[in-house]
């Protein structure tokens, strides 16, 4: 099954989207976004070409080749990474750069030659780095099959799996070491601190729920979503403002704006996932971005006793979903409020961010597909 570029864009952006969800129509907004931040259209891969021509990467590719024909899930990841259209490539960085541009660059720090389309060269590099960190998460997600070590039946595949894990560790380590080098080049220790926190958070996500599989409250949903997705991109925004020496309070504002936007998007998509009948179609749930039902936003809002087994149909409940819509509205309004002050109101980036949020709110109210 081929997914449209939009779906791939959103899913890789942490914007888990239901594939048959037609509203809001993101495509025009996204192409507009790319125009605003001035991304060179020739940049086709998320792994910038300069990272591809070295020994480490060719070794990795060699190992991946050996895995061809095996069942290792890492292959799917690699295919996704190499095969993805340019639109998917810069999805997270798009949000970081839009917020950076909306924040503007302080006059005292204005170096003409380093700034294009209202964005400092270092901010672009940082956004790329956030993209890289996202792939680090993906590489790590594909680890773990070796947990089955003791099982005799797996013996035959054992070496394939070990090879796959090797590549997953090394590939992730490679991305991490590249990020370290890049961060050091900025010569801004503050930025290193911000990203360090983000990486630590990303790792905590895996351990957050301990052994239990389900969320028990909305607070837990917020915490888990923050650790696994939102904090990384939001830290990217904070770091981006640090790079051009914005005030600490403005950095915080950008950080929270980004979090509210991401929370709203994910809430919106998870509501739509359970509100339409198509959610029974297993094919529609295969995107890696989709979370399992008992970790979803509507589930976290449900009144349930701990022993009860919740069926998929129970989430498709108007009363529950209305409750979800209210919460999503609160969330997106917080984003709109934060956007009103300090950000450059005349900037095209500010108005685009505003229309993205408004599209979500329109979608919530129209209930056409939701």
């Amino acid at each position, binding site marked *: 099954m081929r997914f449209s570029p939009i779906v791939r864009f959103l899913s890789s952006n942490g914007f888990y989207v239901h594939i048959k969800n037609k509203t809001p129509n993101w495509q025009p907004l996204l192409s507009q976004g790319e125009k605003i931040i001035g991304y060179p259209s020739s940049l086709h891969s998320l792994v910038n070409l300069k990272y591809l021509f070295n020994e480490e990467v060719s070794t990795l590719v060699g*190992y991946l080749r050996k895995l061809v024909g095996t069942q290792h899930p890492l292959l799917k990841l690699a295919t996704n990474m190499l095969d993805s259209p340019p639109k998917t490539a810069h999805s997270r960085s798009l949000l970081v750069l839009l917020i950076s541009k909306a924040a503007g660059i302080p006059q005292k720090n204005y170096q003409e030659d380093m700034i294009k389309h209202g964005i400092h060269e270092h901010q672009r590099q940082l956004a790329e780095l956030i993209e890289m960190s996202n792939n680090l998460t993906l590489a790590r997600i594909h680890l773990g099959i070796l947990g089955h070590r003791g099982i005799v039946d797996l013996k035959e595949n054992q070496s394939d799996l*070990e090879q796959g894990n090797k590549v997953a560790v090394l590939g*992730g380590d490679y991305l991490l070491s590249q990020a370290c080098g890049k961060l050091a080049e900025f010569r801004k220790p503050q930025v*290193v601190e911000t990203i360090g926190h983000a990486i630590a958070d990303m790792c905590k996500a895996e351990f957050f729920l301990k052994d239990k599989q389900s969320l028990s409250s909305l607070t837990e949903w917020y915490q888990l979503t923050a650790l696994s997705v939102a904090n990384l991109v939001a830290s990217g925004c904070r770091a981006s403002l640090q790079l051009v020496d914005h005030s600490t309070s403005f950095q915080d504002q950008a950080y929270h704006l980004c979090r509210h936007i991401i929370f709203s998007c994910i809430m919106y998509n998870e509501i739509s996932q359970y509100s339409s009948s198509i959610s029974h179609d297993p094919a529609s749930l295969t995107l890696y971005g989709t979370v399992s039902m008992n970790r979803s936003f509507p589930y976290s809002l449900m009144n349930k006793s701990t022993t009860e087994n919740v069926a998929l149909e129970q989430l498709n409940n108007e009363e529950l979903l209305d409750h979800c819509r209210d919460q999503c509205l609160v969330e997106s309004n917080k984003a709109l409020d934060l956007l009103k002050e300090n950000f450059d109101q005349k900037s095209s980036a500010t108005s685009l961010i505003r229309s993205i949020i408004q599209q979500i709110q329109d979608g919530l109210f129209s209930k056409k597909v939701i």
Partner: protein
Amino acid sequence: MFTIRRLSKQFLTCSVISRSYRYLSVGAASHKTATEELQPTINIIKEDLQLIHRDILQHLGCYEQELNELAKYHFDAKGKLIRPMIICTMARSFNQQQDNFLHENQRCIATLGEMIHTASLIHDDVVDSSDRRRGKPAAAVQWGPKKAVLAGDYILGISSVLLARIGNSDVVSLLARVIQDLVRGEFMQLSTKESDAEQFQDYLNKTFCKTASLFANTCKAAALLGNLRDINLNQLADYAYEFGKNFGMAFQLIDDLLDVTSTDDDLGKPATADLKLGLSTAPVLFASQQFPELQTLILRRFSESGDIERAVELIDQSDGKARTYHLAQQYANEACRILSEFPQSSNGSNRFLNYLIYLTQSTLERRH
């Protein structure tokens, strides 16, 4: 022999260092005297290490119970803490110029050295599918590879936060270099070069990346953070780098030697682990110059049954171990020579420099 003679000559010119150097170069009896004399210094460093151990556990603490446990798992009493030991002693030897005090930022570098090292060990164990580390099951065996690897990333994330708080961009670059080198080293281990000349150079590069770079760059960082006045700081930092590099090379060569001479119990991890991973280290590379049939085994990375046993047998018959030891000795001597370029302490005791010499020499004699 020539190098050693040249080195002792140099040490004679600065009497205080050469004294303990002589102690160390003659047999076990005087070795004991040296240890006694050094005891107060050893105690100071021991206290530093205790603080570092406490700091590490404190920094890694988090609310996610399992991660909390896993991240701290390999930081128990079993670790040798050789990295922080060298860094603290190095830092204190500089500081004797001024205030005779270990600065908090320097202690932080020592802490980071151990944290980065341990994070890389956890990842190595997953890549190499090793089961044991520091006398207990590797983290990946206990928690599965995914969680173990994430814990390694977590330690690295926390390390970057600590590093950034020092607030020195040059130091950030040095430590970033360490991480890049560690990863590059891990990649270099995946392939074997075709010709034996290349193989040895490749081995030395790998050893630098995986071990010596950490010693070199952290020593340099500790020097830069010494806040030393009236001396050429950059030159001193370069000396610190060179010392760390040579010490690290000697340290790893001995490690590789022990891998083919020791038993599992001595090491806290399986012996001949390198050969089992298909890696050719100094002893087997030297041996292959005497027994060309080893080349075949090296190139197929000891993958066929009986390869490892045959390799061990040929290493035993060759002078591979002796030459490895000799090479380690040369690096250690060079490290000691560089120390003689360091400024003397203001009270003339040079106690930390002497301790560094002692540590360098005893690296050659360690059994685990």
